[in-house]
């Protein structure tokens, strides 16, 4: 039962909505509307599982005093405190959530403060670090060791210079050749990859719908 019911739901649902897409009738549209309203609600239950699982993992780590257990507090405290400040606490006590920033309705509670002064800079910093590592990696690894590597290197240099205004000062043809590389050789290769991925996805989805591919069930029913 644990395997056959999910398989039946996937098969019926998959075939139904494949057919629904091609039926321009009011009943078909109503069914589709119901689905788009229900699916996020059903999916929201995954949040309960996710939070529960995260809490269990880190509370066990703290109880067992496992390696780096102190960091688990950094997960659990904001996990519960931030929603309390955002959704429960009154604005006078630092509660509230950033809504429409136009006009005078600007809140600056704990939630907003944490978002603007912790989350935004942390995420931006993580992404910015790429520039440093890319520069270091390019210096050490980007070698014209073979004909193909040389072509890659030359193309990279042209595209990099073509993407910045200073490249045009160095040579007016840099942006033109850079764009040509992006619009033709790059596009051809990407198109081939996209088609391959597309056919692969189609095949996998058909296999899932018809029950050939069952890995998504995990260990259910075993």
């Amino acid at each position: 039962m644990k395997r056959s019911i999910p398989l039946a739901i996937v098969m019926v649902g998959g075939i139904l909505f494949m057919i629904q897409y091609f039926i321009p009738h009011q009943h078909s549209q109503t069914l589709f509307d119901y689905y788009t309203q229900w699916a996020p609600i059903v999916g929201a239950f995954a949040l309960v599982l996710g939070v529960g699982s995260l809490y269990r993992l880190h509370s066990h780590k703290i109880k067992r005093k496992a390696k780096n257990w102190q960091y688990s507090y950094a997960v659990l405290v904001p996990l519960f405190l931030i929603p309390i400040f955002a959704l429960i606490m009154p604005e006078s006590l630092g509660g509230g959530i950033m809504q429409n920033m136009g006009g005078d309705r600007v809140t600056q509670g704990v939630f907003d403060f944490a978002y603007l002064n912790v989350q935004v800079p942390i995420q931006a910093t993580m992404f910015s670090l790429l520039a440093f590592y890319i520069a270091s990696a390019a210096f050490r690894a980007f070698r014209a060791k073979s004909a193909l590597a040389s072509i890659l290197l030359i193309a990279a240099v042209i595209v990099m210079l073509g993407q910045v205004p200073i490249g045009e000062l160095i040579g007016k043809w840099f942006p033109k050749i850079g764009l040509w590389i992006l619009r033709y050789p790059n596009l051809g290769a990407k198109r081939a990859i996209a088609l391959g991925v597309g056919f692969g996805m189609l095949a996998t989805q058909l296999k899932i719908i018809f029950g050939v591919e069952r890995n998504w069930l995990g260990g259910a029913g075993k």
Partner: protein
Amino acid sequence: MNIWEKMLNVDRRWIFLLIGIACVVPFFNPLGLPILPSAEVMGIYDHIEGLGPDNAIIVSFDFEPGTAAENQPMSVAALRHAFARNIPVYVTSYWPLGQAMAAMAISELTDESLEDYFKYVEWEDWASIRDQGIVDRAGIEEAWTAEGNTLPENARGWVFEGRDIAFLGYLPYFHLVILGMTSSIASQFPTDVSGTPLEEMPIYQDHKSLRDIDLAVTSAGGSACVSWITYGREKIGLPIAFGVTAVMATDYYIFIQSGQIVGQMGGLRGAAEYEVLLKENGYNKGYGKAFIGMDVQNIAHLLIIFLVVLGNIAFFAGGFHKKTKLKGRR
């Protein structure tokens, strides 16, 4: 260890320092080099330029703070263009953190301390005009100014909440939300983020579903933008414009060539190109953050190319292409 080997084994922290200097110095000594808009960016600009108060667009903040340096300026530029042309805008977000990025963009454009800002009129403030049954954009502005409201000197125009903008925000499973909006926007977003019912808003009266929307600008830091093609463009023919990070831009030229998107802003360069178009056409007196940031890219790109060339010279001059391993193993 000879000089070439020493060079190849240089401590990586020196390279980090050089990149750090390259990122900081241009902010103090701006180069301000001219940027020529590409056909990909002009495609988006021309599309929005062809719209007016009777049309409507969506600007979707489909990114998180990590890629804000690239994505935020392009979203701000598209919003500025729409506000300046009085095109009604629905603002959405694919990710939870994107909603706050959207709020920050609206805040930036309506910040009264900045030049060329848009004076934001809250929903409650123009209730008397709605009560008179005035719904067209020109009529609303006329009635508003007739009530004694004057546009501040450094402001570019008015933004009426509910008519010029509806901030819908984030919903989970956004690809399903896009699908749902093809039938009805209000079915997915019964209210805006402030709790105002969407069905009461003048913007909604003529733009009830994605079928009534003339363009969706998705500014994305991941593959979220493709959902707009899959569920918006391919299902109902919704015109789409991409704003993506530079590393993603190469992936999406296929959608330009196939005609599935009207254009693409690729990375900071794409955003800077849009800012140039806005300034050249009188929608902004100055340039935005992307144009300023391009100075950093100028120097950083040159530096990386210099490092690559230097690395290759040392590699071949030192004869390391004949050896299997460097002593330092760096």
